[in-house]
């Protein structure tokens, strides 16, 4: 293998760094005769997205929306049932493109801090050296790389390289998680709830660091989170997911300033108010996010949508361009049959 030089840019700034089309991932629900119950979790259905070089794409949604599955599909920890991926012009896992291993040199993931995100039996140094060594870097160079990585994330190598995960605080562990993702010098980093488990004061430190690293190393981010405020802070474009599908997609200003999908609006107004004189009076929607097993027919949001009509049960709304953003809602599609839609 090569000596781990960063992979060069191939297509120029206009070419998207990552293009995913029609991704689908269903999971069979275990149980029943012979381990098959016939039920299927439709985690991700026909999802397409593109990520431009140097941007931060935010992905928001609640539990069951499939955002973590998308993360794992993009880095091929899960194999999609259907769909294609193209990395800077090269198809992934196809005869004339790059292999999955080559994909992983360029796309890496930062996991949520948890007991299970770092191997408790390895020192920090050993954990960070694992990936470079697995790609053929000799031990001495791997050690130098570990020192460099720890420096970048603000941890003194002399102090931390020989420590074990349980000796570190949550914020420090998360810095190690980030360092691990950077070990192979990737171009795209997927952050899956990377700051969700941290205390707020530590979260701010880590967010600052993520911004710095992005500029310093020329990275592209996909930032997945349930925390709308953090996504707004970091992202250039935002993608809103519900039950395995994208319901709205656009620039962060458009999504947060003029949300068009009823679910996006509900999500944004569900944020607790920071002003005690203007507290939330009414919950934007009732009920819980439904189960991705057997989602509703047609528009998946219709069971909680205050504007649902017959057409919503019959037909699934496609993601349609409405100028500043793209929305999957019959109300925004002219001639769809919804009473609030414009005439064709």
């Amino acid at each position, binding site marked *: 293998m090569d000596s781990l030089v960063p992979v060069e840019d191939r297509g120029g700034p206009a070419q998207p760094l990552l293009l995913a089309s029609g991704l689908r991932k269903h999971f069979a629900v275990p149980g029943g005769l012979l381990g098959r119950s016939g039920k299927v979790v439709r985690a991700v259905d026909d999802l397409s997205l593109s990520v431009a070089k140097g941007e931060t794409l935010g992905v928001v949604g609640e539990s069951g929306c499939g955002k973590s599955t998308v993360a*794992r599909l993009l*880095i091929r*920890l899960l194999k999609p049932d259907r769909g294609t991926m193209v990395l800077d012009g090269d198809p992934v896992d196809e005869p004339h493109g790059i292999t999955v*291993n080559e994909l*992983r*040199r360029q796309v*890496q*993931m930062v*996991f*949520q801090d*948890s*007991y*299970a*995100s*770092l*191997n*408790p*039996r*390895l*020192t920090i140094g050993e*954990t960070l050296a*694992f*990936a470079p060594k*697995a*790609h053929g870097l000799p031990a001495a160079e791997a050690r130098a790389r570990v020192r460099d990585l720890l420096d970048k994330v603000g941890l003194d190598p*002399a*102090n931390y390289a*020989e420590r*074990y995960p*349980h*000796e570190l605080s949550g914020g420090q562990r998360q810095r190690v*998680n980030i360092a*691990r993702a950077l*070990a*192979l010098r990737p171009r795209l980093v997927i952050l899956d709830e990377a700051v969700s488990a941290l205390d707020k004061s530590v979260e701010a430190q880590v967010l600052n660091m993520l911004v710095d690293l992005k500029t310093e190393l020329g990275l592209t981010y996909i930032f997945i989170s349930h925390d709308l405020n953090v996504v707004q802070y970091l992202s250039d474009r935002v993608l809103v997911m519900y039950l395995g599908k994208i319901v709205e997609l656009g620039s962060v200003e458009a999504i947060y300033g003029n949300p068009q999908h009823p679910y996006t609006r509900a999500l944004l107004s569900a944020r607790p108010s920071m002003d005690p004189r203007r507290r939330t009076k009414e919950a934007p929607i009732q009920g819980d996010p439904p189960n991705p097993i057997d989602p509703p027919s047609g528009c998946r949001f219709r069971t909680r949508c205050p504007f649902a009509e017959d057409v919503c049960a019959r037909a699934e709304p496609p993601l349609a361009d409405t100028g500043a953003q793209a929305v999957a809602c019959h109300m925004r599609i002219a001639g769809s049959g919804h009473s609030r839609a414009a005439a064709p």
Partner: protein
Amino acid sequence: MAIQSPTVDIAAALVRPTVASASRGYWPSVGRRLRRDPVTLVCAGILLLIVLSSIAAPLLGLADPYKTSMIRRLYPLGSPNHLLGTDELGRDMFARLIYGGRLSLFMGVTPVVCALLIGGVLGITAGFVGGKVNMAIMRVMDVFYAFPSVLLAISLSGALGAGTENTLLSLTLVFIPPICRVSESVTTQVRGFDFVDAARASGASALTIVRVHVLGNVLGPILVYATSLISVAIILAAGLSFLGLGVKPPEPEWGLMLNTLRQAIYVNPVLAALPGVMIFITSICFNLMSDGLRTAMDVKA
């Protein structure tokens, strides 16, 4: 308004210098905890004594364990020249117990070690690879699991015939399924942790991932389980010998000795129970040590 002051110095002085501590890795800490556990230490001491005396038996100046004497049969404990008496064929009990330890321990530990190697590899593979491979391996194991271990041991021994090698084989086969099952379950659990996903995402080969990330985390529970099986193995081996399916006379082996001393219960019950006492002591020591190992490993650090 903030009162300006040398904030940096004060803040720096207050931050405690982080001590570059001695290795507080997992296995060293397990070792430390084991050393502090009195029960484990005592059991380890007893076992060490038994094992060393068994290994060094020829050097201990004992009587010949095979030498029979029709006159000096069933001498009680404390007889001159025979500290623990003699058995039904006049052989010195003390010598036979010590020499018997060799075979009994061998028959206890060897099957477990072999089963650990075979069952461990199968289980870890099944757990890590998952899917159809997992199903194939585990369902085969389930077939064996359907039989109670004692019954399985007896039938295998019966089919293979008596003798030391056959007993070792049948015991190994009996222990492979449970070790495989424990290995598979622990590996499946570790496989689900994020750090294994991160290792997969780094593009390393499966073998490397198992070697570096999985083994260190699964060996502990598997070892604990395996050591608890040693006591079972000793008892099973003794039981098989007792039934005539294991070691053949005149070899000294505790289970076989129990069998041949059966008649002596009416004459000298204490004597007849001695091999049983040895089985009991060895078995319970292994068991307690296995418990101690589990406790020492059970810390979330």
